[in-house]
């Protein structure tokens, strides 16, 4: 397998606390890869290092054959990685379409073709009918999809999703899962998601990495991971197996 993204011995410390401890994993082109773990496991820190929001203390991140650790967030995006924010951050004063347009302008210089691209992305995310609305007027499920649309408009090879299911009702959850699955199938885009909602992880991910106290304690298919005794003990609890 050719890895699109690989992290090797990635570590981050905050004062005495080791938030991420020697984490190594690879994500192949075209796969959907999930990172799970209990609160405080280091998922968000790991995500921040992949997205360029934090520089790792140790270890490397390689994307498409080049080192990207320590790059600024905008440089990481220009390399071909789109990200969403767990707490959504739309441009509130702009319309839904213009929010996505800003992303589309990364690889297009004229607004006309960027707008056409933005509309196509909005259609793929079921937001076409809301394109004229102000981003600040959207409901949470719509805002979550807007986050994805905006990141997607930058034409990334890899999409980093930071808890896009958080706060969604089960039906909205399923809608997001089917949209992401379809995107992955139709465009071949690689997706790495950090997720709390196990239902979504089981439905989406081809492989899962489990973090606990900053360290990777298991890696494999979702079915195998949820049966792993270490994972059950640390995170899922016995009832999750049943």
């Amino acid at each position, binding site marked *: 397998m050719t890895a699109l993204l690989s992290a090797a011995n990635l570590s981050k410390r905050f004062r005495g606390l080791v938030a991420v401890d020697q984490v190594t994993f690879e994500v192949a082109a075209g796969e959907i890869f999930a990172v799970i773990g209990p609160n405080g496991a280091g998922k968000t820190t790991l995500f921040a290092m992949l*997205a360029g929001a934090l520089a790792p203390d140790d270890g490397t991140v390689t994307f498409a054959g080049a080192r990207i650790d320590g790059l*600024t*967030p*905008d440089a990481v*995006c*220009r390399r071909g990685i*789109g*990200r969403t*924010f767990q707490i959504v*951050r*739309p*441009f*509130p*004063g*702009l*319309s839904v*379409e*213009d929010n996505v*347009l*800003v*992303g589309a*302008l*990364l690889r*297009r*210089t*004229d*607004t*006309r073709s*960027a*707008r056409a691209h933005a509309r196509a992305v909005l259609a793929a995310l079921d937001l076409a009918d809301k394109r*004229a609305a102000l981003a600040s007027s959207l409901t949470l499920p719509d805002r979550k999809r807007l986050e994805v649309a*905006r*990141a997607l*408009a*930058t034409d990334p090879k890899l999409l980093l999703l930071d808890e896009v299911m958080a706060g969604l009702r089960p039906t909205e959850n399923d809608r997001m899962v089917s949209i992401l699955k379809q995107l992955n199938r139709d465009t071949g885009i690689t997706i790495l998601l950090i997720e709390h909602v196990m239902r979504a992880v089981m439905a989406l991910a081809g492989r899962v990495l489990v973090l606990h106290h900053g360290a990777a304690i298991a890696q494999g298919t979702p079915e195998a991971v949820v049966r792993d005794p270490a994972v059950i003990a640390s995170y899922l609890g016995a009832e999750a197996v049943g």
Partner: protein
Amino acid sequence: MSDLWRSVNARGRIVLALVLAVLLALPLVADRYVLSVLTLIFYFAYVGQAWNLMMGYAGQLSLGHALYVGLGGYVAALLWLDFGIGPWLGVFAAVAVAAGFGAAIGWLGFRFGIAGVYFALLTIAFTEFTRIGFDHLGATGGAAGLFLPFEEKRMGEWWNLRGGQLLFYYLALALAAGAVLLVALITQSRLGYRLIAVREDETAARALGIDAFAVKMAAVVISSAMTAVGGVFYAFYYNNLFPSQVFEMSRSIELILAPIVGGLGTVFGPVIGAFVLTPLGEVLIAVTARLGVDAPGVKAVFYGVILIVIIYAMPTGVWPRLAGWFGLRSRSP
């Protein structure tokens, strides 16, 4: 450009064409006083537009834009006085110097993460020490100021900006209209959307691949360059420059009022703001004179009260409200 025209609705096009036609033809009927007030309106619309680009679009608060007016004016005036280089050529040097200062202030602020009010303080500091510097610089006339000779025989030399009210009226109109066009073009460009993205949420903008530092630098450089052109106009219109006047803090404030009152981050806001505020100042002068109230500061107090009322009634500016009332809101393209 054609996309720009298409984004204005039919009624907006008619109003725009009418207003322009009236302003172009006005000198046929209007007297010198009316033209001088309008010249002032255009000037404030112009420099207000330059500031609007930085604050209204990029979200960077500058309270020292008088610096660029002063630098622009001084550079062009000195080139003219000392080397006989006319303002049409001198304006390039004026723009270069002011943009250089703008870039230096921007670099300091944006590179070291000085944002919001702290950035505003930085802009005030630069303007203040430039004022003090010019106060003591012999080569620029020091505190005694700089005077551009007003010679009767040179009147009508438009290429040296020596002329009467009519020349400056049309020049100011061209500047204001040009600034509106430039900012309108920017807002529909990639840079425009990036400016707004950085203003709305810098972290989110960076996650979309936008180099926020470069975008903010572009804003401050364009804004300071534009403002310097206004400074050249100011110098040749008033024919005198005093450090204590041009670099004065109140000058920086005066120049930001029109875009704030008219509507920040809108293309026509600074224009409407200038059309509201400048005549208001003139009317207040006339009224207080008629009433025989000549206590110092009376005009300023009334001006302040009216400002508060306008901003309270229309917190997002006069223009968005007007546009709504008269159906001038542009269609989404």
